[in-house]
């Protein structure tokens, strides 16, 4: 028998009641059952009674199915969508504070331009950039900018959405 152990990354969009303790229920489900969370992002939607969680996880097909079912089983979970089953857009945002002496600034700004980064703060010896994009773009930007010395970095989890109009 061929051993197929395809560990795949999945992004779940989870709509939940915007209520006390919901995040703990979702996080507790993952820790209690030994599932992985790579990143988790939570925020209110346009309907203030509903929050949207974007949850990145990985596992083989059986684990992913279990994660889907167990999320659905939580009373406060309204809807679970595995975005990786359809074409979707995913974005992250990163804030990067760089060491930037006055003579380096122009060069850094050129690099920033390539990644469509925005300068959100400048100080005599530092510079803070904001970059949005998918995981690959952000990783590439971080790699290049690290040459100048990253002092601090804050990165959101992923948010994602299916393309086109939902039924």
């Amino acid at each position: 028998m061929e051993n197929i152990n395809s560990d795949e990354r999945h992004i779940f969009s989870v709509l939940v009641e915007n209520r006390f303790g919901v995040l703990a229920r979702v996080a507790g489900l993952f820790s209690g059952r030994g599932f992985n969370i790579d990143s988790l992002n939570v925020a209110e939607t346009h309907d203030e009674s509903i929050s949207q969680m974007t949850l990145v996880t990985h596992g083989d097909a059986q684990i992913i199915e279990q994660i889907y079912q167990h999320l659905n089983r939580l009373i406060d979970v309204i809807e679970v969508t595995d975005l990786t089953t359809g074409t979707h857009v995913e974005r992250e945002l990163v804030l990067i504070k760089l060491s930037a002496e006055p003579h380096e600034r122009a060069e850094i700004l050129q690099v920033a331009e390539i990644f469509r980064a925005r300068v959100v703060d400048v100080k005599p010896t530092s510079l803070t950039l904001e970059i949005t994009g998918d995981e690959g773009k952000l990783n590439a930007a971080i790699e290049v900018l690290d040459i100048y010395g990253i002092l601090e970095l804050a990165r959101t989890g992923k948010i994602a959405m299916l393309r086109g109009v939902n039924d």
Partner: protein
Amino acid sequence: MNQSPFSNALQTTELSGARSLVESLKREGVEYIFGVNGGAAMPIFDALYGETDIKLIPMRHEQGCSHAADGYARATGKVGVALATSGPGATNLVTGIATAYMDSIPMVAITGQVFTHYIGSDAFQECDVIGVTRPICKHSYLIKSSDEVADVVAEAFHIARTGKPGPVVIDIAKDAQMKEAPYHYPASVDIRSYKPQVHGDPGQIAKAAELIKQAKRPMLYAGGGVVLADASAELRELTLKTGIPITVTLMGLGAFPETHPLAMEMPGMHGSCCANYAFTDSDLVVAIGARFDDRVTGDLGKFAPNAKKIHIDIDASCIGKNVLIDVPIVGDAKSVLTELNKQVGRADIDAWRAQIQEWKQKYPFEYEQKGDKVMPQYVIEQIYEHYSDAIVVADVGQHQMWAAQYFKFTEPRQWLNSGGLGTMGFSLPAAIGAQLGCPDKTVVNINGDGSYIMTIQELVPAITLKLPLKIFIINNMYLGMVRQWQELFHGKRYSAVDYHDNPDFAMLAQAFGATGLRVEHVEDVRPALQKAKGIDDGPVVIDFIVAEEENVFPMVPAGAGLGDVIRGLS
């Protein structure tokens, strides 16, 4: 004095949160609340004082409250209610909540909480009960304002009893119990994020029916879900209509009569050889409200290797969790079986049925009489002979397995035990709940010497309530099941299992105020059981001193396949 404030149909009466709670519990048809009083729950107990529609049953330990509520729920199918104070009161409920959760028992556990302005301050008797119980309950609520009470109670009962049933925790801050607010009980509950699937997919059911028609060696494998769904009649119809042999798990015992020729009895670690061999040889396993627990399947790699699998379960997350399933059917067992029964006929499997009969006859549950010892299996056989119609509440350990093997259950809800969590100490308080819920039935508690003493304090309310419980202790002076494993797998190194320092349980029963008998000789077993029948004004405790080192067989060692069962004898 105790008239409902709604007797005049005043819909907007102002009530304290505690009064609202009691009123709401009445609306849900609650008959009994099992409670232990304490600081942060005092307003609720005050609201229950003198209450006649709901009877408050004071237990002696909060663990007794949750087990009694659980036993009531298992015996009646209704939602059991436990009540405790904050902090230690709530943490003491936890074992009983976890027990109910593992076996999907409908329960509402209510805990007092410190004043809202103290929450998070490490106040006296404060504990994050919602946090502690999160992984062991179906859902939970923290009530911080009295106007939330009615809606929360209505939702909690709805969630506890529908879908896959389970315990729901309601934690109420003390100020929310005391403050008054307008009271209105919702006429119905609609939770947008909670819509259990009751009816199975017709296409899947048709596929299942087709597989059943084609199978040459099919078997039914039914579990506690059949009992929970009150689908015993539908299960019987399926079995009798198709003539397919059936095994019923520890949690489902009684869902199909074990006295019937098609019954292969319980499967798994201490199950019948017949059921285990059937799994190994079968070409189609139809699982109904059973969850392929490790104690049933043994080594998953060797479990039913040649069988296609149909799995009917209300909980989609249960399907495919342990075993790959060919035809999953999410739905309520009663509804799905009703549809399936319309599409199946008599199975043409005479050779397979003959094989099953051969195994049944060749490998029955059996034991050897050792000297003049009272054999524990003999005691169970005699209990069955004397109390075959009784509700049997077992604890956890060797006596539980012997009871499951040698008592032949014929009705659902006749056998109550902590199958999933395996909670020692469950049975005495659960028997109290069962007896209150079923006053016309005889309730037999089969206990072990280790488990009995874990919740022995609940003998007090049993006596006070004059409950005619038959408490039979299978006393082998050991933590027997662990001792058996030590004998077989740890070179007889009997670490922390020697219970020869047990008290004299008969004398102890008398000290509590119950009838206590001690049986040390085989010839005294029947007269003692006969005598117990005549005692109906309170509990009777019989301490059966049995063979000390008797083992439970058959046994599938942990990690082995079902085909590798050790039969024990011959």
